[in-house]
């Protein structure tokens, strides 16, 4: 069986309206993939940086997959939430990226988006915060039913991910 190790961290986030952020992450893979060790999802600490241009999470990811097929290559998906000084949480963006298919160290920038509501909802949002959220978080990484969404762009999540592959060349896979 071929094995994939994903070892790295969610480094931080930039480009958001405010940088007092935390990140919820998860990893989704197809049916042929099995997690041998490591957490499949998690939530980072809340960072309230002195320099308000970037939030740093430094959240470690260490997952060990075994797989019998290439379909359903793992995808990392994220939700960036903002926590204000009163402790209220508000959604700032969704994003996903595929785990790189070639071994080695990778610096990945994952772009994020936020569902935007009607004009009235947008005005309420600018005064009170909040805003529409996805009922089913699977939509972050799947393409079904995306045609019904209207979204606006938000900031970028920075990842430093290392990928180690095992036995891929024995099966004739070139990556």
């Amino acid at each position, binding site marked *: 069986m071929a094995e994939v190790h994903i070892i790295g961290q969610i480094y931080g986030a930039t480009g958001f309206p405010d940088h007092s952020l935390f990140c919820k992450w998860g990893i989704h893979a197809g049916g042929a993939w099995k997690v041998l060790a490591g957490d499949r999802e*998690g939530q980072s600490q809340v960072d309230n940086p002195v320099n308000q241009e970037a*939030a740093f999470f*430094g959240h470690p990811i260490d997952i*060990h997959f075994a797989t019998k097929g290439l379909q359903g290559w793992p995808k990392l998906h994220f939700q960036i939430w903002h926590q204000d000084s009163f402790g209220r949480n508000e959604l700032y963006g969704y994003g996903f990226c595929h785990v790189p298919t070639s071994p080695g160290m990778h610096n990945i920038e994952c772009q994020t988006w936020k569902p935007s509501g009607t004009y009235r909802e947008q005005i309420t949002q600018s005064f009170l915060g909040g805003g529409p959220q996805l009922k089913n978080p699977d939509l972050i990484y799947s393409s079904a039913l995306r045609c019904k969404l209207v979204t606006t762009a938000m900031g970028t999540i920075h990842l430093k991910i*290392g990928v180690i592959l095992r036995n891929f*060349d024995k099966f004739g896979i070139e990556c």
Partner: protein
Amino acid sequence: MASSSVFLVMVSGQIESAEFPEFDDIYLRYNLSYGQDWLVTSGLEEGISQIAKKSQDDRQQMIWNFPIDVTFKSTNPHGWPQLIVHCYGADVFGQEVNRGYGVCHIPITPGKHKLRLPMFVPESSSLLQKFTSWFLSRRPEYVDPRVIAQGEGREVTRVRTQGFVTVMFNVVMKDMKKLGYDVLPSDVSHVNMPENVGVNTETVM
């Protein structure tokens, strides 16, 4: 000779310098955190550096040049070692307080790597607690710094990033390829096809 199932990772490097715009006179302690399948075969797992003062020029850097020389052996890349850096400095009352934690994985590819670690401190939950901790010089700290190398339990902490530490690593590996692990794209590009792939092993009349 028995075939080995163990690979070695040798890390030699240094914790070079730091940028803390608001503080001076910082020293650090480093720790290595790794999974159950890993073992340190040589080198020190922990260390404490000298106290560094900020340079008076435009760079405003604190330089330690603190060496790290460790060799690990393992059977499984899961639990890859992480370097945890914990900085301390004197506050206005002369007491040693926590100035930041930072964590990074030891790079998984052999070669030279330069990394910049953001340093964060846990924040007190209320304004009153912030004032008392400043006044008494007892800032929030983690009981065991290794907590930041794990993902669990982080969601309830609030932190403040207030500086960066630059670390340089040189990584050498032994026997990763022998055990079937590929850490570089070039390792996988030359595919070894076994001879009987695609050949029907049953005799065909």
